[in-house]
């Protein structure tokens, strides 16, 4: 579970995140929509403990990020827009390396299995990451979330730049993770994927969460229209 209570972050005079109240339950995919500079990435950085909030609190599966950032980070996985891996290592070596850093050592056979579940063949897993496409890197990121047994997943523009097939494949894996009980927060501009995948959608503007919709609420509505109306309101 991911939880933000009156979470606030200021950069000098500018309020990047303003009293954000958010609760993402296990199995839920929450899409956070907003224009550039609205506070999406700052929210993710606050959950990661890379930023200190000015007030309020962020929790990951009950662990306060401010009080125990290392324990909180061990409960979550993070997939940025471009999953940065070591290009000279193969996919399986990267997975081995990153999962061990968080204290989640696994046997090689398991690592290959996790990569396979994420959609990477054995041949691809043994290839140097330097030769990988963006979609393949995202798959390693998903495998890492599986390897660490993350309770929560933070995604920052995960489908940006992915071709439709790769984007669809990625969504399929996200839904699978959610089904396994992972709470997912996805900051995105991709309205189509948000509508397809998210169980809830929030719109953030100037750091404030200005609207939230459940999947059912927007089922028959035009999300793009709603979003643009909110931006111009």
């Amino acid at each position, binding site marked *: 579970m991911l939880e933000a209570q009156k979470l606030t972050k200021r950069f000098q005079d500018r309020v990047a995140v303003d009293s954000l109240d958010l609760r993402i339950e296990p199995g839920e995919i929450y899409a956070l929509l907003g224009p550039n500079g609205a506070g999406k990435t700052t929210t993710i950085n606050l959950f990661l403990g*890379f930023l200190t909030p000015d007030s309020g609190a962020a929790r990951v599966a009950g662990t306060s990020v401010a009080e125990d950032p290392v324990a909180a980070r061990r409960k979550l996985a993070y997939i940025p827009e471009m999953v940065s891996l070591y290009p000279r290592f193969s996919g399986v070596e990267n997975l081995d*390396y990153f999962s061990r850093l968080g204290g989640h050592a696994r046997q090689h056979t398991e690592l290959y299995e996790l990569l396979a579940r994420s959609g990477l063949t054995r041949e691809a897993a043994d290839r140097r990451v330097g030769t990988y496409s963006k979609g393949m890197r995202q798959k390693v990121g998903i495998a890492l979330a599986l390897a660490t047994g993350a309770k929560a997943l933070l995604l920052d523009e995960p489908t940006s730049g992915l071709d439709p097939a790769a984007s669809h494949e990625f969504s399929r894996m996200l839904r699978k993770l959610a089904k396994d009980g992972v709470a997912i927060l996805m900051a995105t501009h991709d309205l189509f994927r948000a509508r397809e995948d998210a169980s809830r959608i929030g719109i953030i503007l100037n750091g404030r969460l200005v609207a939230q919709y459940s999947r059912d609420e927007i089922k028959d509505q035009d999300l793009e229209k709603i979003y643009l109306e909110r931006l111009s309101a």
Partner: protein
Amino acid sequence: MRTLGLELRLFLVERAMWVILALFAGTLAYGIANGASVGLAARASADAAEKETFEWNRQVREALERQALDPRQVAGRPTIALLPPAPLPALAVGQSDLLPAQEAISLWRLEKPSEGRAELENPSRLLAGRFDLAFVLVWLLPLFLLAAAYDLCAGDRESGTLRMVLAQGVTPWRWISLRALARGTPVLILAVGAVLAAGTMTEERGVGTRILLAALVVVVYGLFWLAVAALVNGFARSAAAAATAAGSIWVLFVLVLPTLLNVVVESLHPSPSRAELVAESRAAAAEAEKRGNELVSSFYKDHPELAPAGMQADMTSRMLAVQDEVGRAMDPVRERFAESILQQQRLVDLWRFASPAIAAHEALTDLAGTGYWRHRAFQEQVTAFKGVVHDYYSPKFHKRQPLTKADVSSFPRFEYVEEDTSRWKTRVTTGLIGIAALAALAAILAAFRLSPRKLAA
């Protein structure tokens, strides 16, 4: 352990690192070869001196078996005071190529200043010092370590991998120290291997402690530079900035601070001029020569028991009286000379912790047996031995007492007494603790700086 292995693999997967390691191995081998050649030359010189002394003693003994000899025939021949070859010559040439390791002592030359090098030396080499193993370990090891570890996380920050790493819930300090260890280990293994190899190039026994301490000095000194690399990575926002900062710190600690210390030491205790010493010695000799007859009469007045019948001094007695006078005149000059050098060294000992490079170099030369203190002890013992030679032969000259077979066993013989092991151990251990403290300080500063918030910012 597996993470360390992966870090090591991540490091060695870069071909440039193999080039760096090969280059370092090459410089180490060259340094050892240079030091060993100086050590071999010192050993050959010592063997020749010992052989010559043995041969001379045999000849004297055989001559005395046949008949009594005039002391002039024996005392005129120099006795060689020999500083035994250093215990670990291949480790550091130190002062051994500047200060004499043997001195020819004869009754007629007691007041001659000690000679430096007998052969000509390339002046630039004298200025820069030898390219020995200690040079490689103190000056170049940090460069190779920094080349291997300057980019502990700055490059990851640029590429974005740093955020991925930090998101895994590893503490930055743990991750970076693991990475520093992985990158420093191959370089340090080569360095320690070189120390062990240098340790095998000696004929001395019981040098195990010296080798162990030298290896420890190298490891702790290396850890200091790895901590510096970690500290630099706490600040640098790019690999290029980290490399520049690491290089600047190397210049500061290895070049600037030692030079600055040298300037301070020279200013506070200026190096005495050897030319001045020789000039003063000649002036004293000329003055004493003028007063030769007066001096010998005065000597016999003070030592009537040594006066020959009729108080008629021969040339030898006059020469000795003149030499004694030169000694009296020169004693304060020599003391001033020695005191100045001693003060310089004391100041260096005190301020060596300003830079771990100075402390490491002092420790390595001390362990090699080529440092200042061993040479100073030799000089002190040579000075004392000159007194022994004087006191033994001088009365025999004045009394014109021939040497007999019975005197053979009491001939003055020089035997260098090594300083108590606890003294050099104390000096080296203090240096080691100082370097470790500096390494710990750098590590603490790095740990303070390496917080996820500061790194991910």
